[in-house]
Every structure is written in C-alpha cells, then in structure tokens.
C-alpha cells in the first residue's frame, strides 16, 4: 500500500465509493469526496441526503458497507470515534451526544485522555470558549443548558482535541449573526494553521462566504462538486434539491383584524433553578399578523411557549387572553378548544412520540379538539382508528410528507418530513391562533420553504401566528412584526421592514433601549 494509490494523492482525506446500507436502503451510495489540507470544504444537501451518515462513517460511528477511506495517503478503517480522534478528526454533531446529568467539563473529559485532571480541562475549556466567543461555564450541568449552549460544548470539545480535520454539522443554526462571525474567524484561523474543515450547512450564503469547495449530495449520491464562490445561491439550491426553490410569496401590506392573542404583564418564575424567568412580557397579535420572536437560544423562548400553550399554566388568569377570553390558568386542551394550535421546538418526545405511528401522533395533539370526530361519544372514549388514518393521509397529501408505508412510525421520517406533518396536523384544523417554536430547525430548504409558506398563508386567511425562531432569514421571510426576546424580557414589536440586522443583533445581545416599554404602550 503506497500513498500514490489514491487519485487525490495530495489530499488530507479522500473517500472512494463509500456506501452505507441500512437493510436494502442505501443511505450513502458510492460517495467520492476529497478534502485538501487547509481548506474549508462544504457538504451541502437536504435532510435525508446522507450527509450525517457520511460523516458518521468518517468519524467511526458507523462502519461503511463498502468503499475506502484514505487518510493522509493511507487507507484506514475508522473503527470508533476514539480512533477517529487519534487520527486527528474532530466532530461537532448536529444532534448532541452529551450526558445530561454531567457537567460541561465532565462531558468534555469523557472524550479526552482519562489521566488529565478535570480542573485542567475545565480551565482549558473556559479559556478556549472565551477565545472563540462561545461563553460557557464548565461547571454547569448539561441538563440545565439550552440547545444553543449545548452546541457550544460540542464545538469547544472538538477544538480542545487539536484536530487536523474538524467536521461541523450545522454549527451556526443557534448562533446570532455576530457569534457566527466570530465562529467564522475561528474557522479561518484554523484554516490558516493548515487544518481542514468539513462544513455541513443548509445556509447557502454562509457556504459561499467561507467555503473553498463544496460537494453536494442528494438521495445518498454526489450530485455536484463546485467552487461555491462562483455559484449563485439559486444554482447551489438547485443542485441540492434538484429543482428551483422558489422564495415564499407574501402580500406587501397585509390587512390586520382584531386582536386574537393578548399577553399583558406576563411574569413567570423560573420552574427550575436554571430556567429563565419571564418578566413583565407584553405582546399582541392580530388576525392576519405573523409576529416573529427572535432571540438566541436559552433566553426564555421555551418558557414563553410553555406559558402561551398552557403546557404550564400561569397563576394570573388575565395575563393571557385568547380571542378575548382569559386563559392564563387554562390547560393546553382548553386553549385548543378555543381555536389555538401549538408546535413545540423539539420534534421527538414533545411534538411527537417517535415510536408511535403518524395517526397516533395525530391523535396526540387533537384528542380533545377533535373529540367528536376521532372518538366515539360517551365515557368509553373508543378511538376511531379508521377516521384518524384518513385524516393522516389528508394531512400528508396536503403537506407533501414523504414517508415509507401508509402509516409509519414518526421516528422513521426525516426531520423535515416529520416537521411538515407536525405543522400540517395543526393547519388541518384551521386554527385561529398558531404558536410555533423554531418551525424549521434542522429542516432542509425545500421543507422549510413549504412550512414558511404555510404559516404566511394561514395568517393571510385571517389567523394570528406567533413564530419563535433563531433563524433571522426565516424571521425576515415570514414576519409582519418582529419582537426580540432576551433574558426573559421582550422588546416592543417592530414592523419587519424597519428593523435592520444590526439593530436586531443588538437587541438579541440584550441591549434594550430604555424607552421600549413606553413606545410599546403607544404603539398598541
């Protein structure tokens, strides 16, 4: 075995004909890829395109069914993540692999040499996280951290190991623009040191901005390799989804009706010692309006969703009104009966039960609101499976949910398709109020566009929509008005057209202008 064997002799990593079969399904089908030393290489593709499977094989989490991985000119078998790290490959997963009961430092220690003392690791992690603008307390427990903070741990953990190649899976999805800029500086620094980066993202602008080369995957196959800087976002998207991605359509001047959601002076104490308390929140959403709530993860978005949805009712009945009715102490199903629909952030184990069928998951959110249709009357509550299955098919057809089999388990769908189903489940009821937390987190471009369009269409038909999101592109795409949440406090709403990226970034960073509450009062 000599290093002249591979066709890309000068590359740090090259992959030939790499294939991974799950049963008869080829998640990756004869993938070729090469990463040169000191380049930032983008891996583009929709959800379910095989990106995650590919990088899991590179990182030793999965074993390839066929094909060859050549690392620094030598064919290697990466048997485990430990082996990958030893070779010099670091990885930041999209779905975090952290132990919730352990602290940040302990989680990092698990992937390092056991002989290094914990205090030293905590020190290094703190230093490194400061240097890269990813503030992190090494002694806090993972269970108490938000999604965004958990990702920071993963990034710091990978950087600590001083890798030759670092694989980043959707790293910026939970960062503010300013934080993302800092991360890019970090990546450029790594690149200048001669390290390579394999960068997975849906964000085409980002890829164009920082990547030297791009490999595009679709349905487990390579559909293109290019220099992203010479492409347009539209041409990249075309390679990715196989057809032109239209941007969403919206009216310039939507006509707004009566106030459907009215939150006044909502304060919620922190339920756990590490939750974010909400203080004196005001918001109003009118029929026909999409109110987007921007903010960095862990600033009270989850708590706000819990309060508005009624998953955790609040003490003051008057502080939340739906269609004029005070509902603060009402549970989630009471609010649904008033015409509200809810979509939480986490798909698995919150919005849906992964190992239950889609039709069972339909019953999950609509067991009371559609009681007459889905259950036979009386105390018995016998489920009418046939009716529910029909409704499931209707929703899947309406939202173009791609699935295997008639009524598969929710967990077998890709993230984008499951999210389309979860949103479609609520839209099917024609809710007069819809509250969505992170509607397109980890969802591919095609599904995201469809979901955003559905939200806009719902508002246009006369409903009030609240979208809580960290994705600023999404916010500007759908919002009529934008408010920013930071440390449990909400800014006044700004019309989407009046808010610049810079201003929103400042608000997200917790810079409240002192007159905001007074102005907000006038605006109502």
């Amino acid at each position, binding site marked *: 075995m000599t290093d002249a064997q591979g066709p890309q002799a000068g590359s740090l990593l090259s992959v030939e004909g790499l294939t991974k079969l799950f049963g008869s399904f080829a998640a990756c089908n004869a993938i070729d890829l090469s990463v040169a030393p000191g380049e930032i290489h983008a891996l583009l593709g929709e959800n379910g395109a095989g990106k995650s499977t590919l990088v899991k094989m590179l990182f030793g989490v999965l074993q390839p069914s066929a094909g060859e991985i050549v690392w620094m000119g030598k064919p290697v078998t990466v048997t485990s993540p430990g082996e990958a790290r030893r070779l010099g490959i670091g990885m930041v997963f999209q779905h975090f692999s952290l132990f919730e009961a352990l602290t940040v430092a302990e989680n990092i220690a698990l992937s390092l040499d056991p002989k290094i003392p914990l205090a030293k690791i905590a020190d290094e992690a703190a230093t490194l996280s400061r240097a890269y603008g990813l503030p992190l307390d090494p002694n806090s427990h993972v269970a108490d951290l938000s999604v965004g903070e958990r990702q920071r741990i993963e990034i710091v953990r990978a950087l600590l190991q001083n890798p030759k190649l670092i694989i980043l899976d959707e790293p910026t999805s939970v960062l503010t623009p300013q934080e993302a800029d800092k991360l890019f500086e970090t990546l450029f620094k790594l690149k200048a040191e001669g390290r390579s980066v394999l960068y997975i993202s849906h964000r085409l602008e980002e890829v164009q901005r920082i990547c030297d080369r791009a490999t595009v995957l679709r349905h487990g196959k390579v559909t293109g390799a290019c220099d992203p800087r010479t492409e347009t976002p539209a041409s990249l998207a075309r390679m990715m989804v196989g057809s032109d991605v239209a941007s969403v359509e919206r009216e310039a001047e939507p006509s707004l009706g009566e106030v459907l959601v009215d939150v006044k002076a909502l304060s919620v104490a922190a339920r756990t010692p590490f939750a974010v308390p909400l203080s004196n929140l005001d918001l109003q959403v009118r029929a026909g309006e999409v109110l987007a709530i921007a903010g960095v993860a862990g600033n009270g978005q989850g708590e706000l969703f819990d309060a508005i949805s009624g998953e955790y009712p609040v003490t003051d009945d008057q502080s939340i009104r739906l269609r004029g009715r005070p509902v603060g102490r009402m549970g989630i199903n009471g609010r649904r009966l008033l015409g509200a629909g809810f979509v939480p952030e986490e798909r698995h184990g919150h919005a849906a039960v992964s190992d239950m069928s889609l039709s069972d998951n339909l019953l999950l959110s609509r067991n009371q609101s559609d009681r007459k249709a889905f259950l036979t009357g009386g105390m018995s509550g016998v*489920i009418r499976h046939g009716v529910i299955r029909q409704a499931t098919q209707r929703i899947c057809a309406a939202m173009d949910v791609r699935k295997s089999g008639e009524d598969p388990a929710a967990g077998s769908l890709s993230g984008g398709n499951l999210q389309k189903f979860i949103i479609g489940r609520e839209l099917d009821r024609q809710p007069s109020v819809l509250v969505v937390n992170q509607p397109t987190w980890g969802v591919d471009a095609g599904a995201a566009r469809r979901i955003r369009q559905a939200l806009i269409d719902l508002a246009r038909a006369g409903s009030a929509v609240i979208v809580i999101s960290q994705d600023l592109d999404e916010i500007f795409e759908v919002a009529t008005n934008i408010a920013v949440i930071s440390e449990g406090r909400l800014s006044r709403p700004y019309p989407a057209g009046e808010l610049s990226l810079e201003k929103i970034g400042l608000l997200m960073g917790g810079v409240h202008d002192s007159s905001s509450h007074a102005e907000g009062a006038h605006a109502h």
Partner: protein
Amino acid sequence: MRIELERRASASSLFALVSPILALVLTLLAGAIMFLMLGKDPGHALYSFFIEPLLEVWSLHELAIKAAPLILIAVGLSVCYRSNNWNIGAEGQFTMGAICGSMLPILVPQWQSPLVLPLMLVMGAIGGALFAGIPALLKTRFNTNEILVSLMLVYIAQLFLDWLVRGPWRDPKGFNFPQSVSFSADAVLPELLESGRAHWAIVFALVAAVAVWFMMRYMLKGFQVTVLGSSERAGRFAGFSSRRMVWFSLMLSGACAGLAGISEVSGSIGHLQPSISPGYGFTAIIVAFLGRLNPLGIIASGFVLALTYLGGEAAQLSIGVSDKVTRVFQGLLLFFVLSCDTLILYRIRLIFSDGRASAEARSPHA
C-alpha cells in the same frame, strides 16, 4: 473479530414473536445443563418438570389455580409498566387485598348472604388499590421512587398479615395455630367444574386480560398510558396529566393484585394464614415481561410460569431436587426474555477485523 449490535431500521415483527419462544428454548437448555451438573438425567428431569404436570386432569386444575393470580396481577402490572410506573410491590397489594376481603367472613361470620362473596371481592380490590395508592401519593407529592416504596410495603403487608393471624384474628378454636376461622360456604369462591379444584379466579383473570387489552388498543385511556410511558413531555403536550396517570396505573394494578389476593384466599385456601402466596406478586413481573406487556401474551406466559410452580413441586417428589429449582427457572426465563428482546430492535453482526472483508460478506444479503 467482534460482535456488533446494529440497530434495525424498524422493530422486527418476526423477532417480536420469536423472542419469547427463543427465550423458552434457551431456558430449557440452561435447565438441562443444570440438571446434568446435579447428576440427574436431564431428559427425565425436564419431562417430569414440564410435561408430567400436563398429563392429568387434577394437575390441569392446579395449573389454572396457579395461573389465575399470575395473569390477573401481571395484567395490572402491564398497564403500570407501559406508563413507566414501576410497581414492584404487587405481592404486598395481593396480601392487603386478601386481608381487606377477609374482613367480612372473619369479623362478621354470622352474616350469611349471597352478597357476601361479591362484597368480599370488591373490598379485596379496593384494599389492594388503596395500598398501591401509598406509593402513588408519595411519588406525586414528594417525588419518591415508587420502586423502593412499593417494594418495602410488601414486607409491611406480610408482617401485618402475620400479626393479624397470630393475634386479633386467630381462630379461638384453632388449637393455637396461626390461622383465622375458616370461611363459611357463602364466602368461598365456587369451583368451576365438577372435575377439580379450579375456581372462578381464572375467569376473572381472563376477563381482566381481555378488558385491559381492549383498553390499551382501542381506548383513549390506553393511548394516554402509552404516550405518557414513552414521553412525559409529549403527554403534557397532548394535555394528559402524568400525575393522574401515576394514580391510575398504580391503583389499577393494586386493584388487580388485591382481587387476585382475595380470590386466592377465598377460593384456594379458605382462611387466612401467615403465608398465602408462593411469591405470585413477584413472579407476575416475569409473566408481564414474558407476555411482552400485552395482556393477551400475558395469558400465555401466565400458564408457562404456573407450570414452573407445578414442575417444581413435581420435581421434588420424582427426582428429589429442591423446589428452589422453580425460582432458578423463573430467573433464567426473565434473563433470557430480556436478552432475547434485544433482537427485536437490533441485529447481530459479526465484524471481522478487516472492514472490507465484512463488507463483502454482507453485500449479498443487501
């Protein structure tokens, strides 16, 4: 070479059926090895353990008598376990049900009426349910662990029964034996058939199994159980209360165990005594898992475990081994059931040290 467990794309329905059978076969194999090491002829030992009890009418009746409490308790436990509440104290609820149900024939023996028996059964179920309500209360109020609380309550119930039959409830004409008075004819659960001792408990067990199966499969309540058992957060999103589910599942399983307890005392024993169960409440845990937590599967597994009790008794006589063999078989069975269940979600792969060799070995399969 190494062995790797690879997650299946979806749960294998083939192995969901094959796994309990495979577990039974492995248990028999391990049992044969054990008998061999004890110096017994394994063929003969297994025959007298598992086949002989099935050949006579009277022992089939005994089988039904032993299967009834196992099935009844396990059906209740299956609801508990599906909802992610771990009631380990069915033995205690069984005992408390027996005590509460026996109050009528022991404290007011002079009351003779056809109402006595139904009232006893209801009181037995209520007694078991209330006793299971203790871990429910402590869990919902103080966030205690129901596994520990329900388990410790077993010993309280057993010692309470012991104290009753040696003290206040002892039969004054019973020659100082620790026994209550014998139940009057109105308080005895009648036999089903002329041919043997089997009584109505087995009917209660079968009815309960079918009813719970229907609830779990077709009713919103069963759906709540499954959702809250898989994810409490999703249950909250659906508007289901996990607190109320703790109460419901524990009290339902307590009621089943209590009914089993009073049926056993009334139908098989006829009075209270210090020991009224050969560990039905614990064995029912194995029954529940061997039956895949499915009430219909539990009917089958209840009979299998009942056979291990009968076989243990038979083996003492015919091959002269300790009746502890019963416990060994039950333990082996639980061990193999839980390990074989892995095959439902995972497949076993042999990975040879050279990655490409195994890739070639696998590709024709795909």
